[in-house]
């Protein structure tokens, strides 16, 4: 019986619960609604709008990772998390590097 309890507890930990999915979904909806309300109604403009957009997008990424993809519940050693961080570093270098280099291209031509 005790073993069964532990087993179901393990299952619960690594696959999330209905509660965590619902919380994740509601947070995602809110984080999608915020940029829509703020930007389409011109409450924020220019740089501030870009910041609102990017922050809500990144927060939503985090919500999906934690509530839907169960990254938080991964056991040590956290290979999945490490692989993800490596991937994100590569993506950021590619994206920011491209913008930087190509931006300079336009300046010097």
């Amino acid at each position, binding site marked *: 019986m005790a073993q069964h309890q532990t087993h179901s507890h393990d299952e619960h930990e690594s696959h*999330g619960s209905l509660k965590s*999915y619902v919380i994740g*979904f509601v947070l995602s*909806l809110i984080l999608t609604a915020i940029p829509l309300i703020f930007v389409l109604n011109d409450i924020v403009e220019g740089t501030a709008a870009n910041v609102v957009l990017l922050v809500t997008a990144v927060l939503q*990424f985090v919500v999906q990772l934690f509530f*839907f993809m169960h990254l938080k519940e991964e056991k040590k050693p956290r290979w*999945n998390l490490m692989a993800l961080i490596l991937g994100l570093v590569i993506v950021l270098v*590619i*994206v920011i590097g491209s913008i930087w280099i190509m931006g300079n291209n336009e300046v010097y031509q």
Partner: protein
Amino acid sequence: MSHNANHAVSHGHGHDHDHGHDGHHNMEALRQMGFWLFLITDCILFGTLFATYLVLHNNTAGGPTASELFEMPGVIAETFILLTSSFTSGLAVLCMHKGNKNGLIGWLIVTIILGASFVTLEISEFLTMIDEGAKISTSAFLSSFYTLVGTHGLHVSVGLVWMIALIVQIARRGITPVTTRKVNIISLYWHFLDVVWIFVFTIVYMMGVM
């Protein structure tokens, strides 16, 4: 010779893992991690497409610009549809872990319907744009736009076919360690596509119409 030795070692290792009750589970967990690594590489693929779009999005070559072209109501609908389908694919996984086969298949079907409406909306959006003269060959902006958004749409379409095949397999074989791993993997894939769409929505559409 050294290759042979390596082979023997790796074989011995695998044999070790296959021993006992946990062996099978470990193998499935390892396969799941392999899929995670694929998702990371896919992430890099989308990263390069985003970089291309960000560099080229002002080069409209006299053609239509982002703010002239994008129809936000359709895009907002697509966003909420995909978000909901990400949630329903999670509900499918929950049903699976409760051993509820019909619930699992039911939520997968709901996910497929939502995914199919997403793809339909996206295709009709593309067709409207092409009608307005915004073809992939019109400008660098549109080339990078169709490549980025189209690659995402293609991923969703592949996921739909995959999910249909998986439903057939679950209906025939039930919830086994293998189908469990496959459902876990496809739900990861689906959440990943939702994450990519959030950035498409933010960077391409929202920043485009701003």
